[in-house]
């Protein structure tokens, strides 16, 4: 049996008196599209940041690609791609320069075959000379994903990648995500859109830092009597906050 892509045990993060993530225990299998849902402030971003080695856990542990993040965060960073909730592109660089930069940081020479592959995969060829700051939301998202993909990461962490993007662009983006998953990449994605949640193989719902539901979209919906995922989301959250 191959090891899980992500395995957390009692993962906890506190900011002063606030417990942003509270004893989170979950397992994400390889090649799975795993959705992380939850209202604002429920700890999704904090969870992803800990899995990426950007924040140290206050308690508990997390294995990412079999590596303990607290022990060897730099090794984890070799194997993951990350799209932050606030897209961190260099807006004063062109699309091509952003890609060149990340290719260089990941140890590729400029203008390698890999770069051409990523450009083709995300259909960025015609926009290489455009400043990243002048791209529309959907294209910014694609460029950010391209930058996160250059080094062929085994795991991809996407924090609200489609926030503020129009429906057509969102659909295209999800096609890309499924393509990646078929090719074996594990994808952890957060979202507030239920239609996107439906497309995940499995879901975790968070509220106030802890897990309130876990399973396939159908299993989660069944927990509240087989209604829609959106109903489940609202009902489970209200129960938790009571």
């Amino acid at each position, binding site marked *: 049996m191959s090891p899980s892509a992500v395995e957390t045990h009692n993962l906890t993060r506190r900011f002063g008196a606030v417990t942003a993530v509270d004893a989170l225990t979950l397992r994400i299998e390889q090649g799975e599209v795993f959705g992380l849902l939850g209202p604002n402030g429920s700890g999704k971003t904090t969870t992803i*940041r800990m899995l*990426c*080695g*950007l*924040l*140290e856990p206050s308690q508990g542990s997390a294995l990412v690609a079999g590596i303990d993040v607290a022990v060897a*965060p*730099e090794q984890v*960073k*070799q194997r*993951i791609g*990350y799209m*932050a909730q*606030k*897209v*961190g*592109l*260099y*807006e*004063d*660089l062109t699309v091509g*320069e952003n890609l*060149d*930069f*990340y*290719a*260089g*940081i*990941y*140890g590729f020479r400029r203008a390698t075959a890999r770069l051409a592959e990523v450009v083709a995969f995300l259909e960025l060829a015609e926009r290489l000379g455009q400043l990243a700051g002048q791209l529309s939301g959907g294209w910014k998202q694609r460029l*950010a994903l391209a*930058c996160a993909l250059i080094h062929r990461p085994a795991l991809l962490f996407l924090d609200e990648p489609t926030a503020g993007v129009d429906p057509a662009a969102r659909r295209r983006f999800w096609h890309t995500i499924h393509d990646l998953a078929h090719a074996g990449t594990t994808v952890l994605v957060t979202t507030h859109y239920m239609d996107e949640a439906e497309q995940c193989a499995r879901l975790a719902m968070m509220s106030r830092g802890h897990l309130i539901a876990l399973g396939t979209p159908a299993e989660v919906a069944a927990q509240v009597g087989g209604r829609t995922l959106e109903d489940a989301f609202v009902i489970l959250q209200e129960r938790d906050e009571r």
Partner: protein
Amino acid sequence: MMPRFWPMFRKEFIQMRRDHLTFAMMIGIPVIQLLVFGYAIQTDVRNLPTVVLDESRTPESRDIIQAFQNTGNFRIVAHVDGRPAVDRAIARGEAQAAIVVPYEYPRDLVRGRTATLQIIVDASDPLASQSAIAAAVAVAHARDLLILTRAAGRANLPLEARVRPRYNPGLRSPNYIVPGLVGVILTMTMVLITAMAIVRERERGTLEQLIVTPITKTELMLGKITPYVGVGLLQMTAVLILGRFVFDVPLTGNILLLYGVTLIFIIASLAFGLFVSTLVRTQQQAMQASFGFMLPNILLSGFMFPRQAMPEVAQWLGLMVPLTYFLKVVRGILLKGVGLEALWREVLILAGFAVVLIVASVRRFHKTLD
């Protein structure tokens, strides 16, 4: 060896060229400083515009007027007739000084009475008037001595103090100010630019994206600051060239040594900028911190006020700012033409600053978000 340094360097270089704020700071700060202190340079009192009222019109009167002119403090702009014209010229600001040679002047000289001259000075600018007054008194004294010596039948003066201002014979303040300006400009721009460059990445969210890559702390920091080393060296070159051709400041010593020491100073300043970036959250805080660092540097280093004239506490505090040592080195090299044999202590201390600041900023900089 640091494979990710070059992409970082290249990126930073492109951004530096495109970012208007950074570019404005790089060009603007030196220009403003040169203007501000160029103005200070103007207070170097030379050539006070002067009107002359020569009532006697004799060889003696012309001789003494020439003596005044020779001091360099008085530049004769007009000859006028009558006292009212003198007062008018000064009141209107056409002249800041007037030399009045009365009708009786040559006669009194010959007869051995006290011959009087009147020097009128517009004292609203104390600095300008003081040195004009001193010059006037000195001219009269010199004349007195000459006449007395002759009267005593001696061929030469009984006593003379030969004051030789070394290294800056013209006592010109540009020579003192401009080399110092190199240090002030570097301190200000290097600290500010690096602190801003990191904080900007944090504010824009690109730092989060960057530290999730396998780039090492060292590669990130070095790639970030190295382009600015070039900026610093260019700034110094520009100030020195301007100083040489606009303000006539000599470049006496070993220029290679100067560049070497400046490099150390630049590295120390950049490292401090990195350190500042780990302490602040916003670009505005970075700016405030950099200016907060500037102030003691300018005030205590001896850039504006001579350190010897400071209270002892201020002198002690001055020993803690790097600019103090850099000023000694720049002035030493440029004005005195001395080398390492005289300056090694300062150079060592500067290197010490650089090492300590680098260690401190590397320690404080983390590849995490908290």
